[in-house]
């Protein structure tokens, strides 16, 4: 199991055990992390699972692909460390990953 930490906009921290191969979004939904809506269910089609990757993790998590970058145009307050959590796959190297939930999803 890989450990993930979600920090909700109000500062509440959610530590969760995630299965490798699942997406960060799926783990947010499974653990009822507030502020992750995932309207489209993970099809990279809505930009409502937007998160900020903790600065310590941006290099390991990597850059969004072109399609995700396109969807990020629809997100609220996009920063250089913005990602759509449905496009980040959990793997060993992400053990300890911290992501923050924006104030709102669009």
């Amino acid at each position, binding site marked *: 199991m890989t450990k993930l930490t979600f920090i909700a906009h109000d500062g509440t921290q959610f530590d969760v055990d995630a299965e490798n191969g699942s997406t960060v979004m799926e783990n947010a939904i499974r653990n009822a992390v507030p502020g992750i809506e995932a*309207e*489209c269910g993970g*099809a990279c*089609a*809505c*930009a409502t699972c937007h998160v900020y990757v903790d600065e310590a993790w941006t290099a390991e998590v990597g850059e969004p692909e*072109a399609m995700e*970058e*396109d969807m*990020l*145009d*629809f*997100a*609220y*307050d*996009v920063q250089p460390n913005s990602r759509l959590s449905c496009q980040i796959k959990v793997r060993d190297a992400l053990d300890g990953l911290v992501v923050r939930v924006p104030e*709102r999803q*669009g």
Partner: protein
Amino acid sequence: MTGIISTDVLIVGAGPVGLFAVFELGLFDMKCHLIDILDKPGGQCAELYPEKPIYDIPGWPSISAQGLVDKLLEQIHPFKPDFTYNRMVSSLEKLEDGSFRVTTDENEVFEAKVVVIAAGGGSFQPKRPPIPGIEPYEGKSVFYSVRRMEDFRGHDLVIVGGGDSALDWTLNLQPVAKSVTLVHRRPEFRAAPDSVNKMYAMQEMKQLAFKVGQVTGLTGADGQLSSATIKGGPEGDIEVPCTRMLPFFGLTMKLGPIAEWGLNLHENLIPVDTEKFQTSVPGIFAVGDINWYPGKLKLILSGFHEVALMAQAAKRIISPGERIVFQYTTSSTSLQKKLGVVE
């Protein structure tokens, strides 16, 4: 207002479940009219993820969302449903004789004996951009669509976004507006490359301005915009004077006026029984993602099951007293005639 359009069944929403409802209702000789806020059939399948494969449609190990919509349209073709696109149903009232009067946001009036709400996640509406304090300007100097190009004549116009809507309107309104500034988060665009090239060419000729960045604030008074603050671009924070703004931030789903139709709701969903999929108002049914009952799964295949049972109940309302004979399409000559597969 044009004349009243009458139909047996009015279906609100032309997504996959609304489309298949036409089939099941058609087998019982009920004529359907569908209304959708989009400009095409298919709902989320067509609007959000047309090219994505779906793996849990029985009999189709993999089918693209648009492929499923196309097959459904082919399947319901024999029943000749009517479609009204680009309309939102704004009101729904029950008449004394038990039928329903439905009005759209363009004041078209429909009368139907039965109403089926197949509205999925609600109606697709333009997404409000992430600009604090935008609300007072909406409908006065900030617009989410162009109804008449003339409304923009002589204005300093800011268009925000990087898709086809943003680029198309930038090019189309450039000759009409006093000035056009296009604002997008990055220099890459989702829009057709041809439009992007045209835009850059016009920028070269100083016919319009393109700014990289995000609009973070608006200035103005009484709903009238005077300038927009743009941050995050190479020039740092800049102030662009403008009197009209057109943000194109895609679509989002909202329940919309359905909440005002007097139906019982459960967390923005419409509770139904699992025999008829009828709402708290007899004669109004709800199928697909918009309904709720114990054990509900938001799957297209669940919606298909729901419309088959709903059609039986709808038939009892439309043809009271008539005996309903359960038949298979495989063996029933009368059903095959309706489908146009036998003479």
